[in-house]
């Protein structure tokens, strides 16, 4: 029996029980569409995170206090925060000991309420030096940056993220306006350009001089040199010398902290490459997890197909007998049933890809529980899902088909 005939025979059989065929198909549709949608969401998250990290520049190295394992910049500081000091940061700019370091920008985090007029909002603020913007690849939209004079003078000045600015001042240009942070009056000197990202989002941040954050907002004491910082953003002189810079940073800090040869580092150094790799690993696990859950529903759909095919073989025993009696070979019967199963799963796969695609397409940019969902639809995933649905049909169709083909024609003809 030729392929065309096989196809039309299988299609005819499926068409004779449309409800059953469509319900079986639905199982595959749900499985495949969830694979597509889940993978799109997973890949979307992965791509946006990677893009955002790359935006910060691959030359960025983050130094944190404490020997703890890698932490991500966006999780904030913490840990043993008096290990890295303001003078450590400037020691990293030493041309002799750290020739591959272009600049070091220490930061200190604080949080609290910001208030302007009747508007107020909770902010996660950062105490910075003038170099912070360059280190973090940020730009000023209006006004000016925090200057090093501001740092020395412990000035009560602030640079707002675009979103913070909008929340506090609406559409007005806030430069020159006054606002209150934790009850202290500050003058807004600048606004950052919007970056519109989900992670490392500078839009809802607020920058003040690092000294102001320490002495005025965190009620810190002590001389400026010993002022603890929550992390130091270091820029290497080029992408190629990032690893050299890391070694130099380590050497300088070990010397300054008077660590012996056997002592472990009391700080941790993270390059952007480390962060990307770790994040991609995490995201990869996330994608695999989502994919597996979706895959399970595809598996369940496949079992549904097998179930229906087994029922179908029993119901159509007589038909099988008739076909065999008029000349069908075992192979013809087997191919007919396998074709039916594969047609169902392939049909389900096509509809599932369409449905998953639609979900991903219309879901792109949607906000779920405050997070913006980004989706990336990959043709490879769609093709793979189609391939898998055909494979599911083959895998789950072959056993019922073998059962059908191995029926004895005489017995099958007697079957009521």
């Amino acid at each position, binding site marked *: *029996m*030729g392929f065309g*005939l096989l196809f039309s*025979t299988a299609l*005819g059989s499926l068409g*004779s029980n449309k409800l059953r065929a469509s319900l079986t198909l639905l199982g595959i549709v749900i499985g495949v569409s969830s694979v597509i949608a889940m993978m799109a969401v997973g890949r979307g998250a992965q791509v946006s995170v990677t893009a955002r990290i790359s935006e910060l520049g691959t030359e960025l190295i983050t130094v944190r206090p404490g020997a703890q394992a890698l932490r991500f910049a966006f999780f904030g500081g913490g840990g043993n925060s008096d290990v890295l000091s303001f003078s450590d940061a400037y020691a990293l700019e030493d041309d002799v000991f750290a020739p591959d370091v272009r600049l070091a920008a220490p930061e200190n985090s604080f949080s609290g309420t910001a208030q302007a007029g009747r508007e107020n909002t909770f902010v996660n603020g950062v105490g910075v030096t003038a170099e912070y913007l360059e280190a973090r690849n940020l730009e000023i939209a209006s006004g000016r940056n925090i200057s090093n004079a501001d740092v020395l003078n412990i000035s009560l000045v602030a640079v707002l993220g675009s979103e913070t600015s909008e929340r506090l001042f609406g559409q007005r240009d806030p430069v020159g306006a006054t606002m209150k942070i934790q009850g202290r009056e500050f003058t807004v000197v600048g606004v950052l350009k919007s970056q519109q990202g989900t992670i490392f989002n500078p839009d809802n941040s607020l920058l003040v001089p690092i000294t102001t954050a320490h002495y005025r907002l965190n009620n810190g004491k002590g001389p400026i040199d010993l002022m603890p910082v929550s992390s130091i953003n270091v820029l290497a002189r080029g992408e190629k010398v990032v690893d050299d810079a890391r070694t130099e940073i380590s050497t300088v800090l070990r010397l300054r902290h008077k660590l012996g040869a056997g002592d472990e580092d009391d700080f941790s150094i993270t390059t952007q490459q480390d962060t990307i790799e770790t994040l991609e690993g995490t995201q990869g696990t996330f994608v695999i997890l989502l994919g597996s859950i979706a895959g399970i529903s595809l598996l369940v759909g496949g079992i549904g197909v097998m179930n229906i095919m087994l029922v179908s073989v029993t119901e159509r025993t*007589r*038909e099988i*007998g*008739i*076909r*065999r*009696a*008029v*000349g*069908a*070979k*075992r*192979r*013809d019967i087997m191919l007919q049933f396998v074709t039916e199963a594969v047609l169902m799963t392939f049909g389900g796969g096509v509809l599932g890809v369409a449905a998953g695609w639609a979900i991903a397409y219309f879901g792109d940019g949607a906000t779920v529980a405050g997070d913006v969902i980004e989706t990336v639809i990959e043709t490879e995933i769609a093709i793979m899902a189609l391939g898998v649905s055909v494979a599911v049909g083959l895998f789950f169709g072959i056993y019922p088909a073998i059962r059908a083909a191995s029926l004895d*024609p*005489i017995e099958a*003809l007697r079957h009521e």
Partner: protein
Amino acid sequence: MTHDAPVIELIGVTREFQVGSQVVKALDGIDLTINYGEMVAITGPSGSGKSTLMNTLGCLDTPTAGTFFLNGNDVSGLSDDQLAEIRSRQLGFVFQSYNLLPRETALANVELPLKYAGGFNRRARWEAARRALDRVGLDHRYDHKPVQLSGGEQQRVGIARALVINPDLILADEPTGNLDTKSSREVISMLRSLNDDDGKTIVIVTHDPEIAEATKRVVTFRDGRIVGDRPSERVLSTGPAEPAGPRSGETE
């Protein structure tokens, strides 16, 4: 196709079944020769081996011992696939319960063997199926499904399906078993016409003496053996039978 050899030649054909610990001989050393153009009734009580004989002749079953020549070729040792090929090219089978595919039209049912025989395009299959349906007088029923047809009509679709591959041999297993008297007579006269006018060799398994006598030769089975083999009363009453032997060249 030459007709030097008989259509059917059974030599010592035995078919044993294992039933529990016992071995039952459904066919016990059958010798039987059926020539081209014959119309033979196989009769006998239930369990006498008629159906097993039919399954063997129809290449649905293979003998456990002995030799079966079909059109001069030994088919007793062929593989499952080879037997399927013979069924689709050389045999027409008519069943008691018609065995039509219920969802398919008369035309699609008749077309079915050609799909498995291969080598026929859609048009050729339809033409052959229409011709076969016309031959059994169902030219107005092409697109009817089995449920829309009477029992007699369904059986005629069954006969058309047997005819569509233009076989020399048609096997009918109790073809009138499910039919009323009137439809039975129609079916039998149809089979007789195929024998008389088209030269088909026809073997009918039947319980019904009336039908048996409407053929030309009656073979009686009991306990897996042939206990009688005689010309039918129709042949006897119309005087010496016309030669039932080969009708070379006429059928093809």
